[in-house]
């Protein structure tokens, strides 16, 4: 598209930075000032660091037995998605806690494994209206730009789904309010 051999890596990095600017402007500025330039020497490190900054809350640990990192992330987009899934299931009359959890887990797994083998294993933990995602990284695969692009697609998808849910709720409330108004009149 841009007649550049490694354009996928560059575009992945830029998409992470662009979403970071939208979601976490202060962190975006900090990363930009830290790295200053986009060049091959530090591009993977830039993509890696910026990707994890996309999430609201991130914790990182090292697992000696597996010689790999474990990252636990929390984000309001994932929380809201989990809440919306439960609401829809209850409204349909066929609520199953296990099915809702599996749906959230499958959605995250679908996107986070779309083009990269960075994640070796993933688990989701839900409590009330919040969700946290624990990711065990593959010990011998490091694809920060591809992984970053997958995270961008995930977060944008979740935001779009949450926005659609909010629009549906608003429409229903407005309809209900009109009916009540009509009945009162």
């Amino acid at each position: 598209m841009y007649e550049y051999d490694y354009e996928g890596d560059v575009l992945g990095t830029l998409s992470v930075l662009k979403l970071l600017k939208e979601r976490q402007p202060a962190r975006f500025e900090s990363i930009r000032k830290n790295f200053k330039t986009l060049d091959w020497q530090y591009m993977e490190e830039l993509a890696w660091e910026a990707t994890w900054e996309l999430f609201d809350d991130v914790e990182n640990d090292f697992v000696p037995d597996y010689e790999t990192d474990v990252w636990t992330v929390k984000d309001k987009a994932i929380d809201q998605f989990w809440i919306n899934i439960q609401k829809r299931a209850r409204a349909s009359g066929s609520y199953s806690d296990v099915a809702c959890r599996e749906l959230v887990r499958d959605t995250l797994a679908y996107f986070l494994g779309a083009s990269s083998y960075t994640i070796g294993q993933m688990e989701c933990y839900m409590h009330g209206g919040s969700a946290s995602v624990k990711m065990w990284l593959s010990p011998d695969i490091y694809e920060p730009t591809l992984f970053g692009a997958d995270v961008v697609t995930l977060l944008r998808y979740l935001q779009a789904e949450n926005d659609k849910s909010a629009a549906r709720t608003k429409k229903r409330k407005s309809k209900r309010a009109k009916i009540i108004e009509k009945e009162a009149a």
Partner: protein
Amino acid sequence: MFEFNVAAFANRLANLPERPVLAKAGTHSRYLQENVFDELKQDHQVDLLALDFDAFTFQDLTPESRSKSLAQHNSAWAKCFNRFVKQTHATPQDEQAFF
């Protein structure tokens, strides 16, 4: 026992919502071409502080290969799902079934 209603099934199929596109085909951004890729081709560094992130869209940042790879990924998940579904009963059961 429930009977399979062909007409109802066909009607449902005909009225399926449009499948959401996860990654639209990428578009070319002149801004990115001139300020990023032409610079990188000449082994120059791209100044992140000067780069205007509002001058291009996410669609400009989608490589051509991405929509193809997502379509393949989608197909792989559908095949995996089909494999699970084949193991389930065709008619509703009174017990829970797990894949």
